[in-house]
């Protein structure tokens, strides 16, 4: 901790300053190559879904920013076929859910959405990007969560009843560290529990899409 940090705490400004710090999307693209390692070495295949979690702001400017994100993703959908949907979870947090079988398109979509949010001045409201992976054998769905607050990735493997599969998380961390910028302080590995649903962002979007098409 530097002198500057100590001064900000002494003046009671630390909370305000850190909560409004800009998002750091720099290393988000790390996963667009690292997913190959996930598949080749760990037998985890992309689940075809990713999502962006952000905490809303009580203002019209924020609603406008949300509309801009929708416009950008709409344009992307016609180009790459990445489907998207806005959702609000049980905790009142907003999600942009993206579905695409091409993993690199998912990362690009998430990056576009985050970028639009930042340009509108709401980058500090971005909490995390989440990418789902299914294990080849039986096991739990694994997630790589990207923290926009810290600019790092961390693994998250929920194993029911608010337990985490730390062994699986440890494996993911040790194999992908270096390829991804993995958060070294484990106290920052915040969970995003699925709350009884398939994913932290609720029901599987890809599956509901398929249902809609068959109906």
């Amino acid at each position: 901790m530097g002198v500057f940090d100590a001064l900000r705490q002494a003046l009671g400004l630390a909370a305000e300053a850190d909560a409004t710090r800009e998002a750091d999307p720099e290393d988000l693209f790390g996963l667009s190559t690292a997913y190959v390692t996930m598949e080749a070495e760990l037998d985890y295949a992309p689940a075809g879904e990713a999502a962006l979690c952000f905490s809303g702001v009580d203002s019209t400017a924020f609603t406008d920013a949300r509309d801009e994100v929708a416009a950008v993703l709409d344009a992307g959908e016609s180009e790459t076929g990445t489907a998207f949907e806005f959702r609000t979870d049980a905790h009142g947090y907003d999600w942009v859910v993206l579905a695409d079988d091409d993993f690199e398109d998912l990362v690009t979509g998430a990056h576009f959405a985050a970028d639009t949010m930042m340009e509108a001045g709401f980058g500090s409201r971005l909490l995390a990007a989440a990418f789902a992976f299914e294990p080849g054998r039986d096991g739990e769905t694994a997630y790589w969560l990207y923290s926009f607050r810290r600019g790092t990735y961390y693994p998250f493997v929920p194993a029911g009843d608010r337990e985490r599969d730390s062994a699986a998380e440890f494996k993911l961390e040790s194999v992908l560290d270096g390829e991804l910028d993995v958060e070294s302080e484990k106290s920052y590995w915040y969970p995003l529990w699925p709350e009884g649903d398939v994913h932290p962002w609720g029901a599987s979007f890809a599956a509901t899409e398929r249902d809609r098409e068959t109906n």
Partner: protein
Amino acid sequence: MEWKPDWGLRGRMVLTMFLLFALYIAFVGVMAVFFTSRLFPILVVMTLFLAAQFFFSDKLALYSMGAKEVSEQEYPRLHATVSRLAQQADLPKPKVAVADSRVPNAFATGRSRKSSAVCVTTGIMDTLTEEELEGVIAHELAHIKNRDVAVMTIASFLSTIAFLIVRWGWLFSGGRGRGNQAPVIVAIVASLVVWIVSFLLIRALSRYREFAADRGGAVITGKPSALASALLKISGEMDQVPKEDLRDQAEMNAFFVIPIKSGIVGRLFSTHPETEKRVEKLRELERELETR
């Protein structure tokens, strides 16, 4: 997202801290000149005592409130709320504790960010909506973020020493008719002055830090109105709570979201600003959101 800084608040905070610091320097100076080595042991013992208190402050505060740390399984929603707000504030997730009390309140403890805990009463969970509770928890996280327990402990350290010299200094006068009494009398009088003035300054500092935590909390949730309505709701409820609870918990006031009202304690002496003023400040933030 940029928020307009509250320069008035910053200025008052700096001024208060400066005055407190100057007062303490003068106090130490007077003591060094007039002081005999007779009072030295009290200083050593008190330093150790206060250090221990600081070190155990988190456990002490939780214990005195009858609060228990709760697991993810017991309070899943509360944990999820704390975890997400901590992420927004870029803070490691603090421990979560619940106190079984009808008084709707919340507080944060911990000398460092790693050892900190957020505690809510069962009363506050019953009273507030989820959004309002979020506002209150964000306010507490802002306290942790700003290291308020450490700042207030350091700010009141010499004040406590001064109080103890006022209270127990005569013990060191060495008994009747032995040597010169003047140094001890000067020490006690100086301590009395320092204690009274520092008491008022510390209370002012505490109020300013409440305002700072309100701002911090509002910025974390992005909803100043949620905290405002929570404050109004709690302060309304506070007046209707039975007396017994009030007395039991009076000592914890400094760490509460809204202190329990007591008619004698005037505005100058209170650790928290008036609810109306806090709500007014939050309203300004809310307006800023819409007129940006």
